């Protein structure tokens, strides 16, 4: 009843080509953005802003980056965390070495550095596919971290190789509270998500998808395979790099190279697969599941044991949470092998007919 597009006629090309062609979607997105930009910072406390929403947004951005590569262009990668590390360390260096550089410019430059690294490590994708490529990208993961640890320049010759994010300032305005940092993160993530949404509808995005679905066929119809694949690596790494910069600057503050370990790369890949391969929305849902769900389980187990007053060993509870988390991954995949984003699509289909299905 509410979600019905009947009667929404498009009379111009511009209308036909908008990002969200359905009025209800536009309204929903507008409300969502308004809530995220206005209500949340006004009412959210530090816990929600600093420990839940900021990391959620940052990891969503990283997942989005990987989703462009894996979901749209079909290239598996396990090097996302390394590209994030490049972003984080280069931002630190740009701010350190170019006094007065606006932070957003540093983010973009660092993202470009990550993109360059991504192109280098994307080269094997011209020859290798699937899991072979995934394992090959591990070379990037380990090599980049090794370089960051070995070459003192990257951490300004700190003895342990740790960097500390400088103060974030744009034109003298300081982002120093969790709420301001959250807003900065949100703005960057929202802008980049919008950009990605648009990009994937463009010629580039369509070329990516053609390569994903069958690269030989794509090259037969004239899509330059090497250029397309490397471009996918570059864009994806750019996103990961910016996510890494945010991770260091608006979230953690001080980071060591090991914060961007293989474990993180894997977790970002999990987000993409659980959320939905080839879906912008899926990147957010996946990040929510992987980052927030264990926390929710942890809180829930506290409530449950509080309710029943049973004293269960904390180690058992912690392990149970891990088991339940793993079990739910399997359950979701069996219920919907194409990820959470597909569940949302199905829900939308149902909503159209609600409350009077056939």
């Amino acid at each position, binding site marked *: 009843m509410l979600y019905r597009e009947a009667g929404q006629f498009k009379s111009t090309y511009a209308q036909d080509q908008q990002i969200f062609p359905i009025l209800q979607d536009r309204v929903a997105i507008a409300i969502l953005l308004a809530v995220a930009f206005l209500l949340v910072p006004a009412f959210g406390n530090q816990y929600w802003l600093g*420990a839940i929403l900021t990391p959620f947004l940052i990891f969503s951005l990283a997942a989005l980056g990987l989703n462009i590569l894996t979901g749209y262009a079909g290239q598996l990668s396990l090097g996302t965390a390394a590209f994030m590390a490049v972003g984080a360390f280069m931002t630190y260096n740009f701010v350190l070495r170019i006094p007065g550089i606006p932070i957003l410019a540093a983010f973009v430059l660092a993202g470009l550095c990550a993109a360059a690294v991504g192109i280098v490590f994307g080269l094997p994708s011209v020859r290798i596919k699937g899991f072979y490529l995934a394992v090959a990208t591990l070379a990037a993961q*380990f090599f980049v971290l090794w370089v960051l640890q070995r070459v003192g320049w990257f951490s300004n010759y700190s003895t342990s190789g740790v960097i500390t994010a400088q103060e974030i300032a744009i034109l003298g305005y300081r982002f120093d509270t969790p709420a301001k940092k959250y807003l900065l993160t949100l703005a960057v993530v929202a802008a980049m998500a919008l950009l990605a949404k648009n990009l994937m509808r463009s010629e580039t995005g369509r070329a990516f998808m053609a390569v994903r679905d069958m690269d030989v066929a794509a090259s037969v119809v004239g899509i330059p395979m090497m250029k397309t694949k490397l471009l996918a690596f570059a864009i994806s790494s750019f996103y990961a790099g910016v996510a890494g910069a945010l991770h260091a600057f608006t979230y953690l503050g*001080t980071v060591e190279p*090991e914060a961007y*370990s293989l474990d993180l790369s894997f977790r970002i890949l999990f987000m993409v697969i659980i959320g939905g391969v080839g879906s912008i929305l899926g990147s957010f849902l996946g990040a929510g599941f992987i980052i927030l769900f264990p926390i929710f389980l942890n809180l829930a187990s506290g409530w449950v044991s509080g309710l029943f007053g049973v004293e269960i060993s904390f*180690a058992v509870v912690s392990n149970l949470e891990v088991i339940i988390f793993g079990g739910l991954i399997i359950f979701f995949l069996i219920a919907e092998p194409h990820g959470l984003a597909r569940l949302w699509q199905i829900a939308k289909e149902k909503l159209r007919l609600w409350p009077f299905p056939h």
Partner: protein
Amino acid sequence: MKRIPLVVTLGLVAAAGYSAGAWAQAKEQFVPVNSYWVGPYAAGGSGIAGAMIDYFKLLNARDGGINGVKVTWEKCETEYRNDRGVECYERSKKKGPTGATLIHPLSTGITYSLIDKGTADKIPIVSIGYGRTDAADGRVFPYVFPMITTYWSQNTAKIKFIGAREGGMDKLKGKKIVNLYHDSAYGKETIPVLDAQAKIYGFQVTHIAVPHPGNEQQAQWLQVRQIKPDWVILRGWGVMNPTALKAAAKVGFPRTKIMGVWWSGAEEDVIPAGDAAKGYIAAGFNAPGSNFPVLKEIQKYVYAKGQGELEDKSRIGTIYYNRGVLWGILTTEAVRTAQGRFGKGQPMTGEQVRWGLENLNIDEKRLKELGAVGFMQPLKLSCADHEGGGQVKFQQWDGRQWKVISDWVPSDQKLVRPMIEASAAQYAKEKGITPRDCSKEK
């Protein structure tokens, strides 16, 4: 019909939240216990956290808390991950009548992530035996406390111990030492100190990196075999430790010439290596064994009543357990010191506890009262010095248990302190911090 359970749950949750609000009025000192009970490092995390809680239970049962203020706590699982650690910190920092007393992040990575947050929230970040070494300069890091002994101090104590073993510091000339380190921020940290000491004493040092996780060390130990060093300093973590000992046995390097950092010196690090670990020496800032009065009291007041945290009572007296008790002692003593100034029998805020930490002075007399003589070193902190102790005991694994083989070996603060100050000054410059003037602190 399906919705009812959800509504009921929500109602109950709200009720639970309400009762928590009422409970907050009591005279209680809240200490978050953020640790890890799952994953690769669970053995250490569960042991330390369990022991710390046991000590709190002892205080509550025996003395009725700290001057009548009961210690309360809440456990939070960090999985040794930075994001979970930050979440646990944010979750726990406002609990209790005065918020979190202080935080033990229990992981170097999480410590890094909390430095800014703790400073902004005025909650001390206490990292005992790990964390950021240069934070010992309290003028730049007012809310970070890498207490007792930093890695750098420890390393100078190690060289002193080696010198004593070799028959004098002058005998170190021309000796060869290999520094086998975990290839991470943690592992790399002592390289500059060792290099500086090599210059002073004229020994040769070779740094060999072991990539994480360190479960295969064939190449590294073949290098050691070729160098034929007099000593190997093992700066390991997790599975790297037993694997190193096994690999040493494999190339025939004597274990009595291997000296580990304290994160390489728990039972959990040597038992997996079996016989290969016999004779191995490790540094420690807490003594092993269950023969200390404070541990006997825990047995009497906590475990005898069946209220102990650990299911396996035999872990009492192990390295990790005793380390946790030590952390408990330092935590509560800091609160006690703060109460001495801000009001006896009152719960303290994080800011007040920071004062307590900076004015903490545990001397031999106090150690005796605590039942911890020989268990830990006397220590005294100040506004500038957030380390306080700087001494190390050495222990040797005899195949069944750790035996203490030295008294407290002091570290070389003349060498370490300027390095700490230089590093902290660089940090202050990058962050735009003006160091506090300690003469103006009350």
